[in-house]
């Protein structure tokens, strides 16, 4: 019998905190979080509120897990002010996560827009760990400016481990080591084999249709494209209905959806 879903919280202590981009902190919490790449948690901050965050650490890490917090609301601003040894209440993990096994022995295109890199990071760790299970891996990560690049050192190190890592920034300085412009431009010029490629993307709502167009032009089918959706989550377990997209609930049925399944539901 399936375990009944509940709203029980567990308390975790912050053991490390680092500002990795302006207004964006990577916080490390002590304790094990058993999760699949792409899953998310609900983080409650006493007296203030609750917000949804994708877990962004290595899923095999047993002693801690990490959340990447961009201050853009009451809870995330409050979390960004927390210090080491402060405690937060967390429930989850929730959602389906990325379809890791369906990527085995395939070419994988990862498309991340800004904070969209966060839920992809555990998957990248997973794929590097089991590199032999995957064929070519292309990562396209786009950011607003060169200052907003997340996990910059890791992106550089992944260049050696993945087939191709393209970092693009719309506004770039002379010191910027990546490519000026949008990730769609870099994607257009990359040769991919539509027969054995699966594309995974996460980013702002506006980014996805542009990326989908390029991928479809490259003869990928809609069932080869997966998107992780960002929606307002309150309960995370399918009760509150805030995150509905047509007949689906992003918290329960997602957040990762195959394009052919979700395309007619967006906008309902």
């Amino acid at each position, binding site marked *: 019998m*399936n375990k*009944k*879903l*509940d*709203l029980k*919280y567990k308390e975790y202590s912050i053991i490390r905190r680092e500002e990795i981009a302006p207004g964006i902190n990577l916080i490390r919490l002590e304790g094990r979080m058993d999760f699949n790449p792409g899953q998310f948690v609900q983080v*409650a901050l*006493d*007296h*203030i*509120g*609750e917000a949804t965050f994708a877990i962004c650490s290595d899923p095999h890490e047993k002693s801690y897990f990490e959340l990447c917090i*961009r201050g*853009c*609301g009451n809870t*995330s601003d409050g979390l960004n002010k927390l210090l080491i040894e402060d405690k937060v209440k967390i429930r989850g993990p929730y959602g389906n996560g990325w379809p890791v096994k369906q990527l085995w022995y395939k070419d994988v295109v990862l498309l991340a827009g800004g904070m969209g890199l966060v839920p992809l990071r555990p998957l990248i760790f997973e794929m590097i760990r089991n590199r032999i299970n995957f064929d070519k891996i292309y990562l396209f990560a786009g950011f607003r400016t060169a200052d907003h690049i997340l996990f910059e050192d890791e992106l550089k190190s992944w260049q050696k481990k993945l087939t191709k890592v393209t970092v693009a920034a719309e506004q770039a300085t002379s010191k910027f080591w990546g490519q000026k412009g949008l990730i769609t431009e870099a994607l257009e010029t990359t040769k991919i084999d539509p027969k054995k490629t699966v594309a995974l993307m996460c980013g702002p*709502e506006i980014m996805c249709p542009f990326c989908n167009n390029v991928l479809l032009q490259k003869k990928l089918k809609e069932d080869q494209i997966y998107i992780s959706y*960002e*929606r*307002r989550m*309150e*309960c995370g*377990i*399918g*009760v*509150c*209905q*805030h995150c*509905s997209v*047509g*007949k689906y609930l992003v918290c329960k049925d997602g957040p990762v959806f195959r394009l052919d399944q979700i395309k007619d539901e967006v*906008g*309902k």
Partner: protein
Amino acid sequence: MQGISINSHQLSQIIANIAKSFDIYGTISSNGKLTFAKTGKFSELIIPTPKTRIPFKKILWANHQAIDELPLNPKIKFAFVGIVNCDVLALDILLKEMSAYDFLPKREDILIISTECKPDDHCFCTAFGHNKITGFDLHIQKDQAGYSIYSGSKIGNKILKENGLNSRKLGSFLKDIKLDSIDKFNDKKLSEEINNRKDHELIWQGVANNCFGCGACTAVCPLCFCTRQDFSNKTDGTSKICLEWDSCFAKSFSEIQNHYDLRPENVDRLYNWYHHKFVRAYKDKKHFLCTGCGRCIKACPAHLNQHNILEAIETNKEVRHE
């Protein structure tokens, strides 16, 4: 089904006996207003029963419910006495919707003693084919001699037996619900038509133009259970996370970070309400999240008639105004 004829004294005795082992909730008049509240006296119950503005959900799925007090596990079981057929059906649907979670009592832990309803101009339960009185443990109907009582379950039989109602004095037959000028919907067609938003965009837009987006309909609906997490902060410094009733008509309902609203227009939010009730729920569990109780029609300050809107969508005609 033929009931057992009882007088008001016998009914009062049955209620009193039930009150020994259950917490009784029913439709009562308090300060001149009808409310669904705790009661223990037969004299307070109204039969035939008019609908209260806020239904039973205020007991089972209460606004401001502290999360750490869930699952709702009362020491004394609930008995809902004086609950009408559409609400009995709604209760059953709510429990089915919540069956994946450990929040609410099970159906067998709630005693349902339904009462004959007093349909008003807003009722449209028969549009969903709910003409028959069902789902009760016991049902009470007023008749010329007093009351007729009907059993619909094992526990209903047991209660009648315990109250010495074995030597049956037969009462009247269980009445069906009849509402004038309400045609039955074709459930499948209705769900499909609502799902095809583009085909009815003009109707949706027309309704949205008249809708204030106040959320009164969602507050009174027995099957609107959307919530948001909120903190209840106390002066002693403690804080509790509570489930607050939310309305999908609220502007912020689908807002994500940086105030990016995924349902920016009232028409998007209004459509989502119908989509959840008649498409999402129907696909998932083969029921609508509407039993035609008509509370939304009564509560709407813009005088929108949800029954007429559904009729217009199903038949692709203009919304009737009356």
